[in-house]
């Protein structure tokens, strides 16, 4: 495939900071969602069930063609389909901003913190950041060898994609059929580079809540299934750094392209990918040693370096975005051996580690002091007045991939280059109608009024804008005819 489509879904955590606050987190999430659609008028709420636990009004599509909804007690934002990394980062940030704006408009800025992370450090609950990549139907995803290759990349990319966390957890037995009492207690760790590593017990599997896997194999293309496949990954952390988000998605798409072209090297396959995921994340010395299936001992850094060199050899010059990813990938890998401080503003775990370690020394705290857990959370607060990450933007140390002006624009305007453009247009038309007819919107199309024929958007690269206008005009005409028909019937 030549063209790319990226998407990202974020489940937000919700911290009630004001102990006198009357609502619980689930109630706050519901109020925020309602405010975004009913008061901010950022989109249209669903009129129909999407699932048993997604009744009408549970969420809806936005003017920017993304989606905000409640999922398992979490407020969730799904970006629209984006054709470039810059768009992706911009629309990811637009979701954060829509939600923080709602917090502010409800007067909750000091009472509520929206936390863009993936773990509750007290209860070990976890919630995700899902990545979506469009590939062709011919992508070799049904071959075990391919899943292992992709796993080798995903396990080792955490050295620059991880968001970092204090401590560790053993939330469930490694696999649900294992006896937890027979399992040796996990050694306590001070700091891990990944939020999700402790919560991923399988190499490949299709479930998303329990028995999560490094490679999620769910096959739900949300496009013409004869042509496309959607690679849906849940192993990654939510990133605060725009640069880290771009690198996470950018390097992954290059690996998928190497796999699609049959260039990815089977020698990269790890002996035990789940074990390596955890041992890399928990390595307090940042050596990240791994064993390959072929028996060779190496490190995550060396493996990533080989992957980057392969991408450089085969994909350089393909387009400007590809060259940007390869150059920045090489730069990151070259800087990693210099230590966390050389990665500040580009790698979340390193930035957080630097902040927490500095503070810990300043205040003479142990790594397991509750204050550090609270600071870990605050790193991910999307409120720019208090969230720790934002202090880096203030000093220019956060490497950016978009701008505040673009993010503001992206709150209410869909990206171009994909069908999101058409969906955004449809949402806008709906919102401008005084008397909204019945509608049903989904990622792959919509139904409108009493028109029995759904409008399908199976080609994710087409905007469908003109066809949508024609469809709506036809629907209105049919509506008008239908309006006249009862008179004829009553006369007969």
């Amino acid at each position, binding site marked *: 495939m030549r063209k790319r489509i990226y998407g990202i879904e974020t489940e937000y955590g919700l911290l009630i900071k004001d102990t006198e606050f009357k609502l619980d987190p689930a109630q706050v999430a519901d109020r925020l969602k309602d405010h975004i659609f009913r008061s901010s008028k950022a989109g249209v709420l669903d009129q129909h069930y999407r699932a048993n636990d997604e009744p009408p009004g549970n969420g809806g599509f936005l003017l920017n063609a993304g989606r905000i909804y409640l999922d398992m007690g979490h407020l969730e934002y799904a970006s629209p389909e984006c054709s470039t990394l810059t768009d992706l980062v911009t629309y990811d940030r637009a979701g954060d901003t829509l939600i923080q704006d709602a917090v502010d408009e409800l007067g909750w800025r000091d009472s509520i913190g929206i936390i863009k992370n993936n773990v509750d450090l*007290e209860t070990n*609950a976890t919630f995700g950041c899902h990545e979506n990549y469009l590939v062709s139907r011919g992508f070799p995803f049904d071959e075990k060898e391919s899943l292992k290759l992709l796993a080798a990349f995903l396990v080792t990319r955490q050295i620059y994609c991880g968001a970092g966390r204090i401590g560790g957890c053993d939330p469930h037995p490694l696999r649900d059929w294992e006896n937890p009492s027979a399992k040796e207690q996990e050694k306590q760790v001070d700091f891990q580079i990944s939020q999700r590593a402790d919560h991923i017990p399988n190499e490949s599997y299709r479930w998303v809540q329990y028995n999560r896997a490094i490679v999620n194999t769910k096959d739900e293309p949300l496009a013409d299934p004869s042509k496309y496949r959607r690679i849906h990954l849940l192993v990654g952390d939510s990133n605060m750094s725009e640069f880290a988000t771009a690198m996470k998605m950018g390097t992954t798409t290059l690996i998928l392209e190497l796999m699609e072209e049959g260039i990815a090297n089977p020698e990269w396959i790890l002996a035990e990918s789940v074990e390596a995921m955890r041992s890399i994340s928990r390595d307090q010395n940042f050596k990240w040693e791994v064993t390959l299936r072929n028996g060779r001992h190496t490190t995550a850094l060396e493996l990533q370096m080989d992957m980057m060199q392969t991408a450089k050899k085969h994909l350089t010059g393909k387009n400007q975005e590809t060259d940007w990813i390869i150059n920045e990938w090489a730069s990151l890998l070259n800087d990693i051996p210099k230590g966390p401080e050389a990665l500040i503003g580009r790698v979340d775990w390193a930035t957080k580690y630097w902040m927490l370690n500095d503070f810990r020394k300043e205040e003479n705290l142990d790594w397991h002091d509750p204050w550090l857990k609270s600071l870990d959370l605050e790193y991910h607060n999307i409120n720019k007045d208090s969230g720790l990450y934002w202090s880096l933007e203030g000093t220019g140390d956060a490497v950016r991939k978009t701008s505040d002006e673009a993010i503001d624009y992206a709150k209410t305007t869909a990206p171009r280059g994909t069908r999101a453009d058409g969906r955004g247009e449809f949402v806008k038309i709906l919102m401008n109608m005084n008397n909204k007819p019945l509608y049903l919107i989904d990622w792959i199309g919509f139904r409108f009024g009493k028109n029995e024929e759904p409008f399908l958007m199976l080609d994710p690269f087409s905007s469908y804008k003109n066809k949508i206008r024609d469809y709506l005009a036809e629907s209105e005409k049919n509506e008008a005819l239908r309006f006249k028909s009862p008179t004829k019937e009553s006369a007969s």
Partner: protein
Amino acid sequence: MVMNDPLRREEKKDPTPDRKESGPSSPNVERPGRDDILKRMKRVDPKQSENYKQRTGQ
């Protein structure tokens, strides 16, 4: 990179000193903004993590 809209340009900033030089292995106390970050960190409620209480999602 293909720019779809003039508003969505990458923000060009000068690279920070750390990106061009060998990174020190211990925190640089002279790092710009360090004091502001520490002040921000000291304002955080040390016990707020106990109030997070999230449900497992996906």
